[in-house]
């Protein structure tokens, strides 16, 4: 179905009130009927039982994690499957899976949504592999992955995606990521949204959630399965290994993982379990499910040290004198990592904005759900970065649904304080930004209020591609033309560079006249 046809169908359905029959999918429809309705309105799935595709993640020099989930009826609360299904996996050096280097079986248990997570060991560093699964007489699509170099790499390229509200657009950005020549992808969170239907199809939204707000494991499974009903998302997972962190909407808006009573703890555990079941996450933490440990440090040869942060699980409430966004354990771990950091680029995968952001000169912080709500800890961490002499720090961030470039200073209220790094906040995949009018008015206000803010652009959607050599870190802002178009073309809006051994970024002269709502000259 073409975009036009789908949108016309949506308009026609809305006009006659038929959307209320098709959405919510769970209302009075069998799982098969729900899937049929979802497919009629834009979702699609791989052939059963591998409807949700395949994925790989957490690449190490000798290992990568492979993932799939058996879901013949992706929107059903329970799958029409035996309680445990044996799944075969194969890893090869070629896309036809002829040169097999590793294979085995893994059990897919109903208790984990019939997902499988296979940490394949014994692989060669810096090598591309292909993989597939077999179960119930069927074979999955073939996925492509790679291992990290053990050392000596001269270049790494990776993409970062964030905030992909299903109802706000199609995943042309992921289609672009799938086609990028990158070594890996980092997802910075808000992979799903937990709320119910938004309505308004198709004027403001191209599609909608399948039902009301999600609370149980079955609910969150259905929501993840809905999101994976976008072919471009499955394509991006199958094309590259991913690292993942999460933000709030994987559970619920603005939550703190340490607060709340028993009903919230039930919901959080359900959300975390379903997240694990749907992601290529290697869980080797000190605890156990349903509390996966997602913060970790990985290296890409000698070029890059990637620190994945978890800014949700261990945070306290906002705006407390002794508040924490990292939690004591993760903060100590981060500071120890800073102390013994290798000579490399240091990249923090940071779900929510680190830099200070006031909405207007003299005004309050815009959002204290971000690091602005945890001032003492931010000061402590950035002070530690400075005092330890850590250089070449780049923080990549999501959440804001707009692009920002910031100098990271040890004291954002003191423009003479040391710059210790650069923060790149990427456009969202689809999640709605402020209006063009708001951006035009407030871009200059934010620029005036935040001397460390170098760039703001909020009228577009997309992702970032980072190209890293020992000498330079470059951020390329990829944007799509129209999030309502599943195959929207991708272009590069602008690029920023950071030179090794120096602090602060600069915009590429070739693109520094591209549209933006704030640019510090």
């Amino acid at each position: 179905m073409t975009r036009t046809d789908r949108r016309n169908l949506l308009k026609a359905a809305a006009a006659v009130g038929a959307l209320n029959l098709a959405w919510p999918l769970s209302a009075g429809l069998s799982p098969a009927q729900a899937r049929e309705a979802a497919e009629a309105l834009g979702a699609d799935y791989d052939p059963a039982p591998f409807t949700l595709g395949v994925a790989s993640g957490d690449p190490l020099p000798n290992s990568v994690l492979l993932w799939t989930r058996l879901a013949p009826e992706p929107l059903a609360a329970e799958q029409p499957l035996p309680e445990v299904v044996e799944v075969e996996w194969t890893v090869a050096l070629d896309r036809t899976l002829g040169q097999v280097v590793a294979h085995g079986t893994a059990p897919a248990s109903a208790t984990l949504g019939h997902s499988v997570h296979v940490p394949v060991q014994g692989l060669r560093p810096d090598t591309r592999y292909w993989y597939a699964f077999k179960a119930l007489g069927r074979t999955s699509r073939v996925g492509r992955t790679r291992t990290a170099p053990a050392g000596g790499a001269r270049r790494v390229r990776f993409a970062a995606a964030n905030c992909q509200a299903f109802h706000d657009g199609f995943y042309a950005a992921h289609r672009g990521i799938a086609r990028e020549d990158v070594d890996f992808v980092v997802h910075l969170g808000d992979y799903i949204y937990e709320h119910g239907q938004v309505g308004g199809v198709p004027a403001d939204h191209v599609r909608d959630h399948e039902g009301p707000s999600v609370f149980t494991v079955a609910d969150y499974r259905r929501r993840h399965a809905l999101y994976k009903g976008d072919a471009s998302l499955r394509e991006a997972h199958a094309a590259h290994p991913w690292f993942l962190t999460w933000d709030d909407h994987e559970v619920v808006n603005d939550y703190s993982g340490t607060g709340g009573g028993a009903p919230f703890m039930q919901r959080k555990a359900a959300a975390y379990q379903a997240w694990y079941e749907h992601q290529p996450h290697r869980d080797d933490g000190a605890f156990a499910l349903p509390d996966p440990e997602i913060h970790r440090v990985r290296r890409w040869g000698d070029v890059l040290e990637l620190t994945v942060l978890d800014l949700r699980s261990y945070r306290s409430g906002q705006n407390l004198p002794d508040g924490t966004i990292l939690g004591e354990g993760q903060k100590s771990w981060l500071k120890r990592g800073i102390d013994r950091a290798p000579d490399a680029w240091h990249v923090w995968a940071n779900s929510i904005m680190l830099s200070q952001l006031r909405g207007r000169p003299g005004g309050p912080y815009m959002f204290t759900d971000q690091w602005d709500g945890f001032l003492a800890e931010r000061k402590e961490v950035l002070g530690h970065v400075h005092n330890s002499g850590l250089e070449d720090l780049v923080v990549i961030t999501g959440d804001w649904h707009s692009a920002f470039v910031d100098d990271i200073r040890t004291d954002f209220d003191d423009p003479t304080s040391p710059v210790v790094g650069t923060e790149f906040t990427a456009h969202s995949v689809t999640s709605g930004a402020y209006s063009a009018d708001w951006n035009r008015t407030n871009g200059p206000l934010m620029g005036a209020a935040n001397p460390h803010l170098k760039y703001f652009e909020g009228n577009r959607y997309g992702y970032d591609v980072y190209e890293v050599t020992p000498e330079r870190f470059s951020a390329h802002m990829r944007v799509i033309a129209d999030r309502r178009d599943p195959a929207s073309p991708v272009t590069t809006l602008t690029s920023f560079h950071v030179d090794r051994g120096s602090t602060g970024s600069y915009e590429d002269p070739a693109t520094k006249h591209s549209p933006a709502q704030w640019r510090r000259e």
Partner: protein
Amino acid sequence: MNLVVNGGAESGPGGSAEPVGSVTGWVVAQGAPALVGYNVGAGYPTPADPGPVRRGSRFFSGGESPRTALVQDVELPLTGTTGRAAVDAGRVRYTLTAWLGGYAAQEDGARLSVEFRDAKGTPVALSVLGPVTAADRGARTGLLERTASAAVPPGARSARLLLVLTRSGGGTSNDGYADGISLGLTATAGATSTGGRT
């Protein structure tokens, strides 16, 4: 047979509402639990409150930490009707049971989970019990029984129990309560798994 060591909080230090530094059979991964006697009173569950029929003398509580976590690793049997050969043939099921509760209308809670792992430590099965809510308890202090049962997947070699006791709101006392924790294996007649090579 219950594979859990000290699932009833009966062994080792404890007996009062004071947090303890170690718990027999468990690793204190976070916070500090109290192994409270049913005779302590002061608002804690008593023998007259809802709870296990055979409840012994003590139960787990969260002590004074906002989050207290206990971990216990269980090696699955090597041999026998629920040993590795039977597990790998898909002929073993597990049952996880716990009594979980809290105080009055407060939403402090206890959650027990078991994660089965293969020889490399990869999760292959998961069951989560609780936390029970104040509504579940009718806003009454006490503990309610929760249970889950499922197949032990082929390749499973160990099980990690994770007991998490959480405090809601302010105050100092973490009134997530747990008792009667058990994990049992049973042999079944037929395989619960199906092959991938059909």
